[in-house]
C-alpha cells in the first residue's frame, strides 16, 4: 500500500545539489488574543527548511486564521489549474469558537493545509507562501489582509462562482444563447463525477456527524440509567441492591468511554470526510476557472475572427470620401489591433491549456492522496469502534460473575 506522503519537499528541485531539500511546517500553540467580540486565536507557525530562498534553517512567525485565508486566496489566483488545499470553515457559533476541541481540530486542519502546500512541487515554490511563512511584522500581514480581494468565499459560494462564470454567456459578442463549453467527453465525465462525488461525500459526512452525536446521546443515557440503577440499588439493599449498584457503576463507566469515542470519531473520521468534501469543492472552483479560461479563449478567438473580417473589408473597399492617409491610418491601426488581439488570443489559449494540463496531473495526485487519506480514516474508525465494542463487552462480562454470586439459591 502506498506510504503516507512525506512532508519533505520534492527531490527534483535543482536548487540544492548537496543535501536533500526539505520544507516542513508545523502549526502549534494556539493562544487566545484580544477581548470580547474581537477575540481571536493566534498560532505559532514554525518553518524548518533548507530552501535557499528562505531565511535560515528555522523560522517562527505568529499567524491567525485570516492569514491562512489570505494565503489560500493568493495561491488560487496565481496557480490556476492546481487544486489548492482546502481550509477549515470559519465557525460562526460563538460558544463553540473557543472550545478546546474546536481549537485543536482547527489547529490540526491548518497544519495539514500548510503542509499540503509545502509538499506540492509547484505550490511550495510560491512567493506568497514564503511571505506567509517568513514575514515578521504584523504590519506586513495587516497590509496584505487589507488588500485581500477575498475570492475564496465560503464553500457555498463555489456554485455561485461557477454560475457567474456561466452567466457571462449571454454575451453579445458571441451572439449565442447557450454557454460555450468544451466538447471533451472525458472532461465531461470528470465534471459529472466531481459533482456526484460532492453530493455523496456530503451525505456520508452528514451521517458521520450524526453518528458522533449518537455516541454522545448513548453515553448520556447510559449515565442516567446508571445513576437510576444505583438509586434503586441503594433502596433495595442486600444482594439484589448490590447487583443494581454494580450495574449502575458499570453503566457510568461505559458512558465515559462512549463520550471519549465520540470525540475520537469526530476528529479521526468525520473531520477527514469533511476535509474530503472541501477538497472536492476546491476542485469545483478549479473547474470554474477552467471554464472561465476556455470562454475567454473562445471570446478572443471570435473577436479576432471578426477583426480579420473587418480588416479584409477595409482593405477591399476604397472610400472616396475618406482621404488616402486616413484610410491607411485606419488600416494600420486595425492591423495593430489585430496583432495584439492575436497575442492575447495566444495568451488565453496558453492559459487554458496550462489549466487543462495541470488539472489532469492534479486529478491523479488527488485520487491517490484521497485513497490514502480515507484509508487512514477508515482504519482509525474501525480501530476506534472495535476498541469501544471490546471495552463494552469486557465491562459487562466482568459484571457477570458478580451477578451469579448474588443469587439466593
Amino acid at each position, binding site marked *: 500500500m502506498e506510504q503516507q506522503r512525506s512532508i519533505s519537499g520534492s527531490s527534483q528541485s535543482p536548487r540544492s545539489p548537496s543535501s536533500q531539500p526539505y520544507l516542513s511546517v508545523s502549526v502549534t500553540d494556539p493562544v487566545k488574543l484580544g477581548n470580547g467580540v474581537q477575540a481571536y486565536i493566534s498560532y505559532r507557525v514554525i518553518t524548518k527548511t533548507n530552501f535557499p530562498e528562505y531565511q535560515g534553517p528555522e523560522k517562527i512567525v505568529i499567524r491567525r486564521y485570516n492569514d491562512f485565508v489570505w494565503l489560500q486566496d493568493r495561491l488560487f489566483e496565481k496557480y490556476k489549474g492546481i487544486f489548492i488545499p482546502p481550509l477549515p470553515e470559519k465557525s460562526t457559533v460563538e460558544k463553540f469558537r473557543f472550545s478546546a476541541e474546536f481549537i485543536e481540530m482547527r489547529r490540526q486542519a491548518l497544519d495539514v493545509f500548510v503542509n499540503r502546500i509545502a509538499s506540492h512541487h509547484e505550490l511550495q515554490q510560491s512567493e506568497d507562501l514564503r511571505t506567509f511563512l517568513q514575514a515578521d511584522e504584523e504590519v506586513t500581514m495587516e497590509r496584505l489582509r487589507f488588500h485581500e480581494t477575498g475570492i475564496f468565499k465560503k464553500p457555498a459560494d463555489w456554485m455561485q462562482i461557477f454560475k457567474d462564470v456561466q452567466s457571462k454567456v449571454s454575451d453579445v459578442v458571441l451572439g449565442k444563447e447557450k454557454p460555450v463549453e468544451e466538447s471533451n467527453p472525458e472532461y465531461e*465525465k*470528470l465534471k459529472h*463525477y466531481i459533482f456526484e*462525488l460532492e453530493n*455523496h461525500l456530503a*451525505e*456520508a459526512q452528514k*451521517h*458521520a456527524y*450524526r*453518528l458522533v452525536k*449518537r455516541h454522545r*446521546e*448513548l453515553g*448520556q*443515557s447510559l449515565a*442516567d*440509567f446508571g*445513576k*437510576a*440503577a444505583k*438509586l*434503586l440499588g441503594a*433502596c*433495595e439493599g442486600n*444482594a*439484589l441492591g448490590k*447487583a*443494581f449498584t454494580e*450495574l449502575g457503576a458499570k453503566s457510568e463507566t461505559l458512558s465515559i468511554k462512549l463520550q471519549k469515542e465520540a470525540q475520537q470519531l469526530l476528529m479521526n473520521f468525520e473531520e477527514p470526510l469533511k476535509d474530503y468534501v472541501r477538497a472536492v469543492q476546491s476542485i469545483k472552483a478549479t473547474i470554474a476557472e477552467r471554464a472561465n479560461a476556455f470562454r475567454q479563449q473562445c471570446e478572443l478567438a471570435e473577436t479576432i475572427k471578426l477583426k480579420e473580417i473587418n480588416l479584409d473589408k477595409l482593405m477591399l473597399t476604397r472610400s472616396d470620401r475618406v482621404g488616402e492617409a486616413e484610410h491607411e491610418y485606419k488600416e494600420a491601426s486595425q492591423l495593430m489591433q489585430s496583432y495584439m488581439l492575436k497575442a492575447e488570443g495566444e495568451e488565453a489559449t496558453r492559459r487554458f491549456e496550462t489549466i487543462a494540463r495541470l488539472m489532469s496531473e492534479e*486529478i*491523479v495526485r488527488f*485520487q*491517490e492522496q*484521497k*485513497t*490514502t487519506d*480515507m*484509508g*487512514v480514516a*477508515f*482504519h482509525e*474508525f*474501525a*480501530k476506534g*469502534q*472495535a476498541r469501544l465494542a*471490546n471495552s*463494552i*463487552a469486557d465491562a*459487562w*462480562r*466482568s459484571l*457477570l*460473575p458478580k*451477578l*451469579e454470586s*448474588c*443469587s*439466593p439459591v
Partner: protein
Amino acid sequence: MMRQENDGDQEADLHASQDDMESLVLDEPPSSNGQSSPSASTSVDRHSATATTATSSQGFNSILEPPSYADAIFTSFDSSSSNGHDCPKPSSYQSEPPTRSEFLKIWVTDPQKELELSNSLVPGGTSYHTYLITTRTNMPEYGGPGSEFTVRRRFKDVVTLADRLSESFRGFFIPIRPDKSVVDSQVMQIEQFVELRRAALAKYLNKLAVHPTIKKSEELRLFLVMKGKLPLTRSVDMASRMLDGAVRLPRQLTGEVTAVTDVNEAAQPAKGGRDLLRIFRELKQSVVNDWGGVKPMAVEDDKEFLARKEKVAEFEQQLSNLSQQAESLVKAQQDMGETMGELGLAFVKLTKLETEGAMFESQTLRANDMKNVATASVKASRLYRELNSQTVKHLDKLHEYLGVVLAVNSAFSDRSSALLTVQTLSSELVSLQSRIEKLEAAASKIFGGDRSRMRKIEELKETLKISEDAKSCAVREYERIKENNRSELERLDRERHEDFMGMLRGFVLNQAGYAEKMANAWEKLAEETSGYAKDGS
C-alpha cells in the same frame, strides 16, 4: 461465530440489487444470516476470535445453562415476539423457569366483533369484541394433565373476574387488570386497539395463572372453563349500591332497620357496600384517628409493616425513575443503529460511484475500502437493532413491576380498611357500653323500676351482642388480611429477587454478547484497512 462471517456473505450482501441494498437496514435480514442464527444460540466458540480471557468464556458457558436464558438472549431472528394470530403461542415474554410442576397457560386469540342485543337504549345497537380464551393445564382442579379448554369472553367479563377476585382475595397482591381505556379506542384505529387489548388480556390472565393462590381460585376456573355466559355474578356497580344504601339510610336512622353492622358485612369493606351509615361511621372514625387526640382502640401495631410500606413507596419511586431511563436507553440504542445503517448506505453509494467508470487504480482501491466500511456499518446497524429488541424484552420487567407495586398498594389498603372497620366497631362498642351504663345508673335511681328505660337497656344489650360478634368477625378478617399481606410480601421478595437478577443477567449478557459481535465486525474492517496504519498501530 466466525464461520458465519465468511466472504460469501459479504459478497451476497453487496452484490444484491439496489432494492436489496436499500432494504439492508430496513426489514428482514438476508437469508444467509437467518440460517446461521440458530448456531449462535448454542455456539460457545464465539470467543475464539476475540481476546477474552479463558475464565470469562467459562463463565459464559456456565451461564448458558439453564437453556431458557440462552434462548431468551440469542434467538434473535425468530418469532419470539409472535402476535398470537395464528398458532397459539404465549404472546408475552416469559422468564419463568420451567421447573414448576404445575402449569396453567392461557392464550388469547381471534378477536370477533359482536353486536349488543337487547337492553340497548341506542337504536341499531352497539358492538363489542369477544376473544377466544384457550387454556392448557395439568392442574388437578381443572381435571389433571392434558386438560384443555376454550371459551369466548368479552372485556366486561374480565372486569367482572377482576372485581370478584379483589373481593375474595383481600390482602393478596392481585395482578392489576388492563385498563378500560375508553378514550384510547376513539383515538386509534379499532383494529389497533383490539390487538393491544388482546395482548394485554393475555398478559393479565397469565399473570393470574402464575399467582400461587389465585391460580387455584374458583373464580378463575369458572372464567376459563365454563362456556356460554360467565357464571360469576357481576358486582353491582357503585351507583346502584349507593342508591340501595340511600334508601336504607333513613330507616336505619329511625331505627326501623337495624343500624348495626351485620356480621357478614363486617367481613367486607365498607366502601362499595350498601350500608351508607357504616360508611359514614368509618369515615368519622378515620377522622378521629387522624385528627383526634385519642388513640384508636386497635392500632397498626406492626412496626415492621409500617416500615415495609414506606419501603414500597420508595421502591416505586426509584423503579419508576429507572424505568424511564431504560426507555431513553432503548431510544438511544435505536438511534445509534439507524444512523449506523444510514452511514453504511451512504458508503454503498460512494462505492458504486467510484466503481462505475473508474479512471484510476487508486479509485478502485478506495472503492474496495468503502465497500468494506459499508459492510461493517450495515452489520453493526443490524446488530444494534437486534440488541435493542432484546434489551426491550429484558427491561420490560421494570415496567411490569410497576404494575406489581399497584397490586401491593391495593393489598395494603385492604388491610387499612379492615383495620378501620375494627376500629369503628370498637368505638361503637365503647359508646354502646357507656350508654347502657348510663341508662342502668339512671334506672336504678327510680324506685320500682322504669319500664321504658329497662326496655331500652334490653335493646341496647342485644345490639351490643350483635356488635361484639361483628367486631370479632372484623378482627378475624383483619388478621387474615394481615397474614395474606405477610405471606405475599415474602413471595414478592423471593420473586422480585429472582426476576430482577434474571433481568440483570439477561441484560448484561445481551449487551456483552452483541458488543462482541460488533467488535468482530470492526476488527475485520481494521484488518482490511491495516495497510494504511500509521506506525505503531
